[in-house]
């Protein structure tokens, strides 16, 4: 009994201290929350500030978005046209999603609906592990393993190309699609499944006719998050896409993405110069692109919450 009292006393004192400190802690936590907003605006300001040499005078913005010629170090006339880079990014991402969406959603359906017990746990852990592989390792796999395979099977002139980059990006975004997709399938109430079963629906009909419509927002958000991952990825695409400034005519052509251009050229661009500014302007374009994708994903997720 006395032991009990002894252990309790400091607890009460601690409580009292906590009570007095509570407003302080509340403010600290509030600050943590708001700091995210602060950081976003600080980053946005930083990118715009660093791109000022290109944004205000150095680069013709119409040419920037409509020209396919990226010749930043030309002695004749430096040209800063990122259309080929935007097309490269969009093509690689789109092709990656063509692989990743069926694979990711298929895996999500399997884990959530057709799998249980130990295999389910193992699969979940393995897929989480897949997400933990560093992008440079993915890059090496694409460069050393996938490249020769692609050349051998398709007769492509060069193994580092759009197809290679897309497959690697697909493998990188699958874990996100699987885990978000599985969560949204799990969120569909069991009563839906029971009702469908009682009406004599097969398992496939349950997935296709009941679960997909019910979880469509969550699945869409999963896909969009995968897209966001693919657009922003840098190191792996730098190593696997071939890094060639051109509008691709086939998936076997090398392409260049926005992120890879920044990564390979920023180191040697003269700080404050037009080339430097143009690279930050690319950063701004990327910021806007990923912001749009994430915002779309967010609105879609919000849609789910409102429905439920």
């Amino acid at each position: 009994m006395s032991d009990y009292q002894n252990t309790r006393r400091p607890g009460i004192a601690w409580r009292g201290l906590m009570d007095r400190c509570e407003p302080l802690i509340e403010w600290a936590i509030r600050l943590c929350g708001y700091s995210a907003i602060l950081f976003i605006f600080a980053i946005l300001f930083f990118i715009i500030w660093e791109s000022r040499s290109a944004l205000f005078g150095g680069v013709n913005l119409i040419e920037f978005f409509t020209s396919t010629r990226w010749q930043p170090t030309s002695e004749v006339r430096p040209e800063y046209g990122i259309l080929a880079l935007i097309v490269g990014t969009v093509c690689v991402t789109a092709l990656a999603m063509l692989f990743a969406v069926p694979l990711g959603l298929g895996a999500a359906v399997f884990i959530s609906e057709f799998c249980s017990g130990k295999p389910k746990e193992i699969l979940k852990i393995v897929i989480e592990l897949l997400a933990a592989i560093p992008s440079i390792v993915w890059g090496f796999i694409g460069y050393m393993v996938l490249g020769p395979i692609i050349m051998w099977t398709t007769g492509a002139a060069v193994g580092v190309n759009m197809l290679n980059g897309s497959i690697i990006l697909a493998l990188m975004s699958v874990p996100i699609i699987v885990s978000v997709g599985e969560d949204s399938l799990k969120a569909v109430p069991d009563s839906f499944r029971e009702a469908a079963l009682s009406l004599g629906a097969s398992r496939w009909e349950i997935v296709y006719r009941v679960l997909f419509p019910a979880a469509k927002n969550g699945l869409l958000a999963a896909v969009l998050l995968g897209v966001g991952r693919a657009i922003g990825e840098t190191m792996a695409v730098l190593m696997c896409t071939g890094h060639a400034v051109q509008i691709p005519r086939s998936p076997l052509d090398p392409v260049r993405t926005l992120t890879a251009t920044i990564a390979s050229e920023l180191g040697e661009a003269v700080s404050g110069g037009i080339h430097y500014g143009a690279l930050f302007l690319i950063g701004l374009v990327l910021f806007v692109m990923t912001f749009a994708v994430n915002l779309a994903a967010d609105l879609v997720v919000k849609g789910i919450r409102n429905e439920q």
Partner: protein
Amino acid sequence: MTPQMDFSLIILTALVCGCGDSHQSATAIRNEGSDTMVNIAQAWAEEYNQKRQDVKVQVLGGGSGVGIASLIDGNCDMANTSRKMKPDEVKEVEEKHAAKPQEIIVGYDALAIYVHKGNPLDSISLEELADLYGENGTLTKWSELELPLGSIKNDRIVRINRQSSSGTYFYFRETVLGKGKDMKLGSVDANGSKDAVSLISRTPGAIGYSGMGYATDEVKMLLVSRRRGELGVAPTLENARNGTYPITRPLQIYVIGKPTGAVKEYLDWILSPEGQEVVLQLGYVPLETNK
């Protein structure tokens, strides 16, 4: 994501080295720049450290431009470059440090033209290279060079180039295409001399350029002539020295003002027969024999 990681790594190494050095009161020389020269610079640093344990030379790559930028910002003592400093860079040094940059030539580099080892091509001319790499160039297929395709399955010539800010890129553009010419877009741009060679070794239909020192068993170096149809010259030390090989360039180290103290001693050692032996061993062209 990764470039930031690189920077923080560099900072971390710099911090760690900095702390270690101040502790042992050893002199540190910071040496940064050209990726072409990073192998030589590293070998010099190691060899010199065996002789003089009180001097630590810290070598970083990144490119000629990175080295010069670091020199201007005062982040390194010696900048390795495979190109001459540009006038605006010289001006920036003078403005910031009130002293002129000093250029010391420490060796020569011959740019070799590499193809896959199974490629039947043996020789190429600067004219053909310009037709292949230059804007408005028309050469795009191996069959246009009139040779049996051999192990090349795809007739398309895969041009391996370097990222447009690299010193090697500038040098190749100026020497092969001529001043004031642009490269044709759409080449596969490798992110380092070694990457370029390793990509060629994996791609039967590829052609590219890199320093002579990067040759491996998987690639073949072509004989190079100035004009179409002329007899090609092999990229050997001999030919680079006597100037018959058409793509040779000086490698230099820049310092600010007249070098003094540890930096001067290090530079003197680099220019000595012992230091030049390192240049030769790594497949570059040493100074002595060039005079």
